[in-house]
């Protein structure tokens, strides 16, 4: 069977603002139907990467393809099939929420009124309010409604939850992503960039961690949680000299030992067990812990 055209394909992308290189030789492929996370610290190159996908910036070397098309050559065809929420949301402040959505809908072939109403109710937004008087969180909510209602094949979200309070964050991200996917289960693709990884823990199918514009790690989330383990051991006396090759990080504290393992978890467990620890336990790292462990090592 021929594999489907990736929703997004980035090959050896490099982009520099004058002499400051923002993205260096980046590779990334997003298969259709996936919810893909682009994780990195502030300034890691997430926004630049996304802007290259939208033809807001032209790659200086390398290729980007969206639905197999070059966004510079087929700008309209590409933009018709995706929705984008930038990191800074801006609307005309004199328009009401209702007018803003109608205005944005006028550029779209399709607009799901039912989803719009449902999300309005969930967010308790007043359609008559002028967008200029909305809080940052409410403006983001409007932007997300505007991104979901056209029912495009691809949703690109740049830091959709940064700057928002934790309650709002928790609530709306699942709501929005759920509403978006529901329309065509298994076929709608999401690319989301963030450094607030915990909120997206259960939503992300696959992710890439970038740092200084370079790919550090690309993994499937379930595989990541299986591979990265935190192992804790406590011994009767101070821990013996052990061969801990394969451990990403080792912390010692008196009789206790804490290891971060990447794939070598079972072997390390076995080696620790041979020294008869009083207690030995293991747990998976969360995606955020993997992020931190990867960037620190």
């Amino acid at each position: 069977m021929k594999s489907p055209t990736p929703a997004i394909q980035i090959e050896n992308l490099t982009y520099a603002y004058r002499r400051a290189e923002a993205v260096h030789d980046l590779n990334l492929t997003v298969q259709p139907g996936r919810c893909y996370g682009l994780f990195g610290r502030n300034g890691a190159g997430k926004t630049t990467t996304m802007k290259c996908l939208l033809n807001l910036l032209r790659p200086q070397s390398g290729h980007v393809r969206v639905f197999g098309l070059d966004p510079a050559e087929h700008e309209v065809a590409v933009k018709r099939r995706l929705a984008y929420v930038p990191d800074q949301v801006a609307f005309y402040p004199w328009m009401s929420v209702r007018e803003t959505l109608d205005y944005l809908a006028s550029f779209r072939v399709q607009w799901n009124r039912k989803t719009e109403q449902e999300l309005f109710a969930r967010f308790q937004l007043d359609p008559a309010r002028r967008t200029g008087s909305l809080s940052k969180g409410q403006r983001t909510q409007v932007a997300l409604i505007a991104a979901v209602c056209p029912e495009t094949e691809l949703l690109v979200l740049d830091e959709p939850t940064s700057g928002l309070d934790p309650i709002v964050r928790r609530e709306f991200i699942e709501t929005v992503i759920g509403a978006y996917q529901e329309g065509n289960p298994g076929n709608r693709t999401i690319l989301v960039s963030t450094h607030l990884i915990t909120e997206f823990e259960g939503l992300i199918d696959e992710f890439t961690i970038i740092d200084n514009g370079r790919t550090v790690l690309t993994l499937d989330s379930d595989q990541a949680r299986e591979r990265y383990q935190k192992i804790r051991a406590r011994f009767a006396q101070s821990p013996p000299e052990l061969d801990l090759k394969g451990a990403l990080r080792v912390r010692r504290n008196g009789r206790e030992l804490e290891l971060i393992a990447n794939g070598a978890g079972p072997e390390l467990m076995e080696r620790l067990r041979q020294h008869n620890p009083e207690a030995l336990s293991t747990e998976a790292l969360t995606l955020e812990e993997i992020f931190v462990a990867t960037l620190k090592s």
Partner: protein
Amino acid sequence: MILQINFKSGMPIYLQVVDQIKAAAASGALRPGEVLPSIRPLAEELRVNRNTVAKAYSELESLGVIETLPGRGCFLKGNHSALRKEVRRKLLIVEIDQAIVQAHHLQVPRQEFLELVNERMDVLEDKRRANVNHKEN
């Protein structure tokens, strides 16, 4: 039925959903014919991807644990396994072998292990009985 996802267990999320629904069915917390939560609300409640819940449900369906009635939702099936007895035994043997290996490492000898199995089966029976009595009252 309240499900709980643990991101630190290292087990794929969809399998956690599958296991917990199987456990609820075994203990009688979920009864044959009872409706399961729909995909999207459950996904939102668990804070996981909708596709993950959909994958869990289709796995449960292929195992014969639940059935989907178009437009009405997913329901727990009665005597569910569509597999032949030998196949079912083989599947169980894999799990038992794993538990035996675990028992060896945790220094639980044969007799104690067997007693524990008996004890755990009693616990499940009790739960089942409690759930059934509750239904009758």
